[in-house]
C-alpha cells in the first residue's frame, strides 16, 4: 500500500464529509449537538493500532454493517461500555438499565450513522452506497479488528485505518467509526477524485 500524502489528504477530506453528515444526522435525531473530530487516515501496523488507538484486549461493543453498492467493504462502529449507556440515553431520552434496549438503540444509531456516512461519500463520488443491517457483538477489540480486515482480504501487516471519533458536549464519546474497504476500493476512490 503506497499513497502520496496528497492522496491521503484527499481521502481524509472524503471521510471528513462523510463523518460530518453522520454527526449532523445524529444531532438531528437526538436534538443535541454531536460533533466529530477531524478524521484519522493512517497506515498502521497492528502493533501501532493497538498501542495508539485501542489495546487488543479491551472488550468493546462492535457494530458491523456491510457496504452495499458500487464499492464493497464494511463499516465498523466500536463503542466502549460507558459510551453505550450515554448514546442509548441520547437516543431514548432517558437512561435504561435494560441491556437489550440499550444495544438496540445503539444498533439503530449505528445504522443511521453508517448510512449517512456512506450516503455522503457516495454523493461526492457519484456512486450509490448503503449499509446492510448491522450485526452487533461484544468482543475483544483485537479479535474484532483483525477478523474484519482478514474477512475483507486485507492481509497486510500494515492496514489503512480510517477512523472518526465523536464528541458530545465537549465530552469525548468513546465511539469510533472505522471504514474498512475491500481491496482496490481506496485506489478507485482516489482515482475518482482525479488525484
Amino acid at each position: 500500500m503506497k499513497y502520496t500524502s496528497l492522496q491521503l489528504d484527499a481521502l481524509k477530506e472524503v471521510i471528513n464529509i462523510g463523518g460530518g453528515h453522520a454527526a449532523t444526522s445524529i444531532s438531528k435525531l437526538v436534538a443535541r449537538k454531536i460533533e466529530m473530530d477531524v478524521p484519522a487516515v493512517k497506515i498502521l501496523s497492528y502493533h501501532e493500532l493497538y498501542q495508539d488507538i485501542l489495546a487488543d484486549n479491551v472488550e468493546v461493543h462492535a457494530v458491523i454493517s456491510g457496504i452495499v453498492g458500487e464499492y464493497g467493504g464494511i463499516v465498523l462502529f466500536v463503542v466502549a461500555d460507558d459510551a453505550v449507556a450515554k448514546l442509548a440515553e441520547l437516543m431514548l431520552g432517558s437512561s435504561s438499565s435494560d441491556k437489550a434496549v440499550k444495544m438496540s438503540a445503539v444498533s439503530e444509531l449505528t445504522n443511521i450513522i453508517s448510512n449517512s456516512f456512506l450516503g455522503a461519500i457516495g454523493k461526492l463520488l457519484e456512486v450509490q452506497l448503503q449499509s446492510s443491517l448491522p450485526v452487533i457483538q461484544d468482543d475483544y477489540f483485537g479479535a474484532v479488528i483483525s477478523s474484519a480486515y482478514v474477512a475483507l482480504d486485507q492481509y497486510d501487516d500494515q492496514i489503512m485505518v480510517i477512523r472518526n471519533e465523536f464528541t458530545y458536549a465537549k465530552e469525548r464519546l468513546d465511539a469510533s467509526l472505522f471504514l474498512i474497504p475491500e481491496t482496490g476500493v481506496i485506489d478507485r476512490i482516489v482515482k475518482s477524485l482525479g488525484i
Partner: protein
Amino acid sequence: MELTQKEIKVSIADYKLASSPDKMLTVGLGSCVGTFIYDERVGIGGLSHIMLPDSKPFVGKGTINPAKFADLALPAMVAELKKGAPSSNLKAKIVGGANMFNFNSLSANGNVGQRNIQAVKEMLQALQIPLLAEHVGGKTGRTMIVDLKDFKTMVRLVHSQIVYI
C-alpha cells in the same frame, strides 16, 4: 533463588518460545488461531498466532512473514523447539478460528476461521504432533494464556468467561 514467572506476549502474526516457569499469552484471537506446542519433560513451549491458512497465494507478492501463515509458522516454530529439545515429545493445543459477525455472508473470502483451524490441524498431522485439546470455532473472540509450569491453557472469552483446556 526463586524464579520469577514472566508473562510473554505473542502478537498477531508472530510466534515465540519460552520455558518453565514462564507464561505466554496471545490476545484477541478472532478468526486467527493460536497454537501452543510444548514438551513437558524439557519444560519448553512455543506459542504461535497465525492469521491465514496458506502462504502459497502470496508467493512473489512482496515479503512474506512466515509467522502469519499456518503452513510456514508451525514448521518454523517446531524446528526452533527441536533445537532446544532434539529428542522431543511434542504435543499441541489450539484455540481460536471463530467466525465473527458471520463474515462469510459479508465477504467472498468465506469462513477464514474454519480454514485456519483446518490448516493448523493438517500441519500438526504432517509434523506428527498429537493435538491434545482445542477450543475452536464458534462466533466469539478469545484470549489464550499458557502456563509452562503445568502446560494448562486458559481460554478467556468476553464477559470474563474462562475455560481451561
